[in-house]
């Protein structure tokens, strides 16, 4: 019998969002000083707590040369709690649902304070090429991935929108 225990950030008196902002500032510096191919990330405004990122679909996957936009929200307990990451570009993927929510262990219970914006985006990029079909959010996509790559690719392309269309 599993007893439900509450844990986590509820009401934790974090030492303020200023230290969170400092940490994010450093991460931003790191991303700008060492640009990574196929990945961008930048804060939406000066308070640093919401970022917009893009990842480029990896080569030789159904997502090849497609650009995906994501939003990242950081709480006051970052980096001790994971950021909330959501796909803004509609995506057809076994581990992403129709509203862009992602099922990825490092964004949930396997989150570590040693991870960063960059490592999250790199993990998401590799998730595009290597979905975890054991626990899909989109069952149909998981099935097509395993059985019918052509149909899978069609669905990916049908669902995808270029960033320009997205903003319009």
């Amino acid at each position, binding site marked *: *019998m599993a*007893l*439900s*225990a*509450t*844990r*986590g950030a509820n009401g*934790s*008196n*974090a*030492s*303020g969002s200023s*230290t969170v902002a*400092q*940490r994010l500032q*450093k*991460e931003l*510096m*790191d991303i700008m000083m060492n640009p990574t191919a196929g990945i961008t990330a930048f804060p939406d405004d000066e308070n640093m707590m919401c970022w917009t990122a893009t990842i480029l679909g990896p080569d030789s996957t159904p997502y090849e040369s497609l650009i995906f936009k994501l939003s990242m929200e950081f709480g006051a*307990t970052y*980096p*001790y*709690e*994971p950021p909330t990451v959501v796909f803004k570009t509609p995506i057809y993927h076994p581990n992403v649902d129709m509203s862009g929510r992602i099922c990825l*262990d490092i964004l949930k*219970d*396997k*989150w*570590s*304070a*040693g*991870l*960063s914006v960059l490592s999250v985006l790199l993990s998401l990029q590799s998730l595009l090429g290597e979905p975890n079909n054991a626990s899909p959010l989109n069952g149909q996509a998981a099935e097509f991935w395993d059985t019918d790559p052509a149909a899978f690719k069609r669905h990916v392309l049908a669902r995808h929108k270029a960033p320009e269309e997205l903003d319009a």
Partner: protein
Amino acid sequence: MSEEELAQFQKLSNEYSADQNTTGPYVGERQSSSAIATEYANADRVYQIKTAALPSQYAYFRTCRGDGHCGWRALAFTYYEALLRVGDVNKLEEEEARLQSMHNLLNQVGFQEHVYIDFAEEVYMLLQKLAQSLRSMDGNAENILLETFNDYGTAMGIITFFKLLASAWMQCHPNDFQPFLEYPLKTYCSDNIEASQAELDHLAIGAISNAVTKPAGFAIHVLYLDRSEGTSIDTHRFEPVDQNGMSITNGITMRLLYRPGHYDILYKAEDVPAPIQQQPVPAQAPLQVALAAGYAEEFVPRSNNMTDIMTMIPGLSYTGLSQQWPSVSYDYDPSPAPQPQLQPVPTYAPAPTPAAPVASSHQEYVTPVHASHVGHAQSHHPLRLETPITLPIHNSRPPPPMAIDCPAPPVTIEKGGPFRPSMYELEPGFGSGQLHHLPFQTSIFRNSHYNTAHYLNPDFQPEEWSPDSEYATGNRGRLKSTSQ
């Protein structure tokens, strides 16, 4: 399971989440461990038996909030606490240097420095704060530690650094850890050690003890309070050992109490220092060192200090002192500290009539001295200092001019502490950072002819052999045997 039982379990479950463990301070105050036995008084019999004996062995405990980080928090907290028990500023600095030297382990397993440096700095910041507190002897170190661990952000930073260090250590010593695991060490570390939600486990304690606490000379004891058979609580020990497997602790043990899913901190009575009446001790180094431990290198007596002290001896006066207490200057100090700036006044000036009361704290203890008094004080007070002081002194400087009408040097007001005429009155823990060994304990001194036990010493007194006393018992025995 019936509906009722289920409802009962659900009720317990609901109450559990509202339990004090998930609220309250992240690390609590130290309290009597009889509270644990009381808590289990109505529990399962195994628990009752096991906890009943606890308070007699472990006098105190400290709670940690059960928010999923209690184990790591308890481990990190007790590590700092163990360092405080060493009570040596040098130890704290040594540990900082040692932990910094382990950054290469973190780099080696691929942690990015710009990510972990924030956590590392929280660790070092606390070490520095504690060192600062020990140095100033403000008695505040324990409070600083407790406050720091009750600040969520700082404590999480410290915890995270220890997690990353444990993970790096495990990955750099795969032979010590992989045999316990069914899947790759790297995965284990990222899922069960580094993950923010991962609670302390046995392997992690092993890693931290090898990486951090054993080299520091600390043992870790984890007491497992569970429902297993037996009447006592099992203890798992992580102790520093030498190459022969002999335990080589420096006598300091970090004790954790583990109950399934939760860690608290335990103490034996002797782990806890007796409450010390801490009051700030002024840093009047030169004089106290001279009284307590001979001559320190930088000993530069300051005539104004001397005078202040001497005036606290009833019957002594400034004028009496000024002629009889020459400027004590140990000439091996090539650059003596600048003399206090006193107005040069005629040394033998008769005390101005009447002695102008000087506005300084020590004057309260001195009965006003009249000019007529002064002469008598010199001639008949038992504490006269007329005999020339035969220290290795070159009286190179003229006796320091001292004047009653000179306002007391500000230094005495600033330091303001009570004068302690004897080393036996120093506060416990005074000068804990420094060694106060008397030179007589060194082997060099023991073998030198300055030692009165040495035959070349002019005061050498050979030990006299008194056969009667030495063989008193032996003789009796022999007498008995011969008389038979």
